[in-house]
């Protein structure tokens, strides 16, 4: 009988330990409720065997911490975060790029083109008029400057994107190193340590915004991070250091153009461009912008760049017309524009008003036959509808519009994707919070529940203690009578 009482006392006392642990878990949950990466924990209770006849007095035992982390929810967040990272980087950079392309026709290249056409028209109406000739030269210079300025600004964006790429790679390297260090800590400590796990998953979420990652949890609790599932970034305690390099294109069509940016493994130079650029994340969008979008405008190793095509076509056609003409003194016409023809990807930047031309050298006469005194000037004035960009059937203005339209479409898509992914990410984060988040109400209720259990168990101890005391007193009386 007495052994039962003592066993019950021990059982009740043990339950206080377990309930203390449970309240500790609640405390940890509540204090980490806002900690990034933290997943709510709960203590598993386990009923002990109860069979008084076999002297098994039951009670409760701790069966360890249960982690609410949900791999699918985490992956969903990473996926949307990758897409958001890509869309945000694209939207931001394309926004900067599109701001260089005036679409109201009041400034920049379109206005300069309009001014040149008007100058040609005014000149054709008065071919020997000095001010009209000077107006043509000024308008040509204005167009050259507009093209120079746009090309230079786009080129500046290329440099800024290089810096962004370098900065993003630095962030990726820092996060990869932290994850590797956390892997080491997890190996050395408790694999279920919610603090380490919170840090780890917070790092992974940040990383997912920068690049596409695939994460595999190993049996020892560490994570292996792959770049887009294809190249290792973090394996155990080892992080791969990435770098940005600009190797020359092996078979460039335009050797003088700035080479593409490449993401490489710093230690062995392995080129990761094909993996990175076909995935998502900020770095993929930056690579796309740096190696595809910008070269499509101002040229790269494999493309001449639309703005260079435009500049070359205008210069060539205007020059061809003028040099086929004659001045009023019978002299052959001289070119209006010059550019560095040995640098096809720098034509827009090197386009200039022919420094040797003077107003009187503008050749308005089409020698024919039949000769037309303002024939060349008239044809130049008609270039707005007849001049087409080489290899296309588009007028200069339409070609410019197509460049702006392409950038505008990309920017609009990126902005829409940014908004959509922002919503989807928040939904994924909500879904994850529902599974892993700390509900303060739930924790408070649990706290009350554990408190009550604790008080009950404590009361049990008190009752058993009284009973045991009574028993001891009774035993003492029996012994004194005996």
């Amino acid at each position, binding site marked *: 009988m007495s052994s039962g009482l003592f066993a019950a006392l021990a059982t009740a006392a043990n339950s206080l330990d377990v309930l203390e642990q449970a309240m500790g878990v609640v405390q940890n949950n509540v204090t980490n409720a*806002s900690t*990034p990466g*933290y*997943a709510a924990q709960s203590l598993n209770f386990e009923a002990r065997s109860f069979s008084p006849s076999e002297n098994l007095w039951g009670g409760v035992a701790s069966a360890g911490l249960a982690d609410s982390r949900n791999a699918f929810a985490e992956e969903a967040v990473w996926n949307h975060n990758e897409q958001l990272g890509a869309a945000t980087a694209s939207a931001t950079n394309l*926004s900067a790029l599109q701001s260089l392309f005036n*679409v*109201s*026709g*009041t400034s920049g290249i*379109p206005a300069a*083109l*309009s*001014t040149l*056409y*008007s100058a040609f*028209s*005014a000149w054709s*109406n*008065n*071919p*020997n*008029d000095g001010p009209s000739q000077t107006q043509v030269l000024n308008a040509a210079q204005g167009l050259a400057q507009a093209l120079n300025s746009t090309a230079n600004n786009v080129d500046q964006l290329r440099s800024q994107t290089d810096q962004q790429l370098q900065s993003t790679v630095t962030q990726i390297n820092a996060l990869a190193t932290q994850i590797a260090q956390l892997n080491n800590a997890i190996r050395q400590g408790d694999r279920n340590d919610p603090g380490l796990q919170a840090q780890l998953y917070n790092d992974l979420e940040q990383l997912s915004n920068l690049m596409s990652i695939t994460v595999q949890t190993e049996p020892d609790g560490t994570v292996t991070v792959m770049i887009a599932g294809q190249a290792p970034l973090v394996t155990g305690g080892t992080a791969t250091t990435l770098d940005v390099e600009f190797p020359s294109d092996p078979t460039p069509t335009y050797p003088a153009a700035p080479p593409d940016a490449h993401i490489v493994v710093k230690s062995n130079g392995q080129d990761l461009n094909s993996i990175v650029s076909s995935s998502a994340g900020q770095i993929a969008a930056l690579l796309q912008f740096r190696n595809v979008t910008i070269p499509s405008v101002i040229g790269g190793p494999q493309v001449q760049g639309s703005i260079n095509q435009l500049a070359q076509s205008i210069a060539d056609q205007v020059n061809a017309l003028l040099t086929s003409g004659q001045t*009023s*003194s*019978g*002299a*052959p016409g001289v070119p209006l524009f010059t550019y560095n023809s040995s640098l096809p990807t720098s034509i827009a930047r090197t386009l200039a008003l022919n420094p040797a031309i*003077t107003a*009187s*050298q503008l050749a308005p006469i089409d020698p024919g036959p*039949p000769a*037309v*005194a*303002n*024939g060349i000037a008239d044809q130049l004035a*008609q270039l*707005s*509808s007849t001049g087409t960009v080489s290899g296309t059937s588009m007028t200069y*203005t339409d070609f*410019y*519009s197509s460049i*702006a*339209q392409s950038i*505008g479409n990309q*920017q609009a898509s990126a902005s829409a994707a940014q*908004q959509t992914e*922002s*919503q989807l*990410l*928040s939904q994924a*984060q909500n879904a994850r919070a*529902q599974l892993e*988040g*700390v*509900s*303060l*109400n739930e*924790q*408070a*209720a649990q706290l009350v529940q554990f408190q009550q259990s604790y008080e009950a168990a404590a009361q049990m101890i008190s009752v058993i203690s009284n009973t045991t005391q009574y028993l001891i007193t009774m035993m003492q009386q029996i012994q004194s009578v005996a």
Partner: protein
Amino acid sequence: MIKGIEAYNPGFLANLNSIENRLAKENNEISSGIRVQQPSDDPGAIAPILDTQNAIAQVTQVQKNLTLANTTAQTADSALQNASTILDRLVSIAAEGANSTTSASSEQALALQVQNLEQELVSAANTSANGQYVFGGDHATIAPYSFNWSYMNGVATQGQFSLSGNLNASAGSPVLVSVPVVDSLGQTHTLQVSFTPAGANTWTYQVTIPATDLSLAQSVSYTTNGSATVTVANTTGISVGQTVSGSGIPAGTTVVSISGNTVTLSNNATATGIASLAFGTPASAPVLASGTLSFDASGNLSTSNTSPITIHIGNLADGADDMILNWNLFGSSGNGLITQTAAPSSLTPLVVPAANTAILRDADGNPIVPGLLASQIFDSQSGGPASDIFADVYALGQLLTSGNQEAIQQAALNLKSALAQLSQADTQYGDVENWISQANQNASQKLTNLQANLSALRDADIPSIATQMTLDETALNAALSAHATLGNKTLFDYLG
């Protein structure tokens, strides 16, 4: 992570952000009035917007062109009316001259009036607008005529030539170029231009006329009756010993000396006023113009004489056809007329006859040739009208002192048909003015349409944006209010 509808809820923030972005864009559109400010605002509208802007700029320029052309046409119209008035006066003079009672001295006075009126007629034909001769055609900076009663029909006509080709510095001998030029009677003369090496990258050039095709005639002013000195415009082609002939100059007169533009003759002149002197054939071809050409390292040309040179040409073989042609030898610096080095040492002359080919376009690109060339109105050069007005006037001037009344009457009739000719030209200018007026109206209408199109494409629809903005503001306020009413307390607030 906190579970539940807490303030940090990323979905709520994303939605809030989305509404705020919309509001910012709407605010921007309303304040600027422009819907498409950057490519992404409406990529599909960019091409139509820029094309429309371009079209607006072009139509605006066409309007300016039409205004200028209209000024020229109106000026031409006035000039022709002025010319008609002059012809009317000449017809009156002819009628007076045909009167048998007119005295010889009156005939002389009438003849002088005819000379003056022909000069006025030349001025009318040389009318300019905006610095361009309205009947100058393609060479609108060169006066169509110059007046000189001493020459056939009393006028000289315009023209120009230039040379192109290569000069070979190693050739060592002059390069000769013959330039055929045609006068207003369709007779051909030959200018000879020679280039002689004169050191590294330098040549001298001379323009001459073969002596057999030459007499020099100049209008000179007799300041004093009985003086042996006359002042000439220039002494090119005049040499000591040459014979001199002309009204008021005794037969057998020769040139004694030349000092500046003053020529001393062997006999005193016997008249006062403006008259013509013809200088006899010189022993050698006179140099009408000369200078040096030099080239820089790039082969660009510079020349010592960049002004047009007026060369006077006559025809000894037909003494009655003496005339002046104003030929402009162009050779301005750096115009690439003549290149320096490559063989062969030959230059090709380009003689540009007076022509009128410049076209004017309306806003739809339809062209017209708005002007008429002076020779299409006044003289009988190729392509000109049947009646040579200057010839008619000149004939009247000559006939008035002849006493041939029948011939004077015929001259009056010729002048009447010349008047009809002017009237026809005037009608053509009237048509041009009508065309310009119509083109202007069309351009204005087109401009209005284009501006309306541009507005529809580019401008913000303020009422609908304002409505949308109100909706978004309401949505924003509702979202914030709804969020504010959410409980921000948890069960913990009620514990203990």
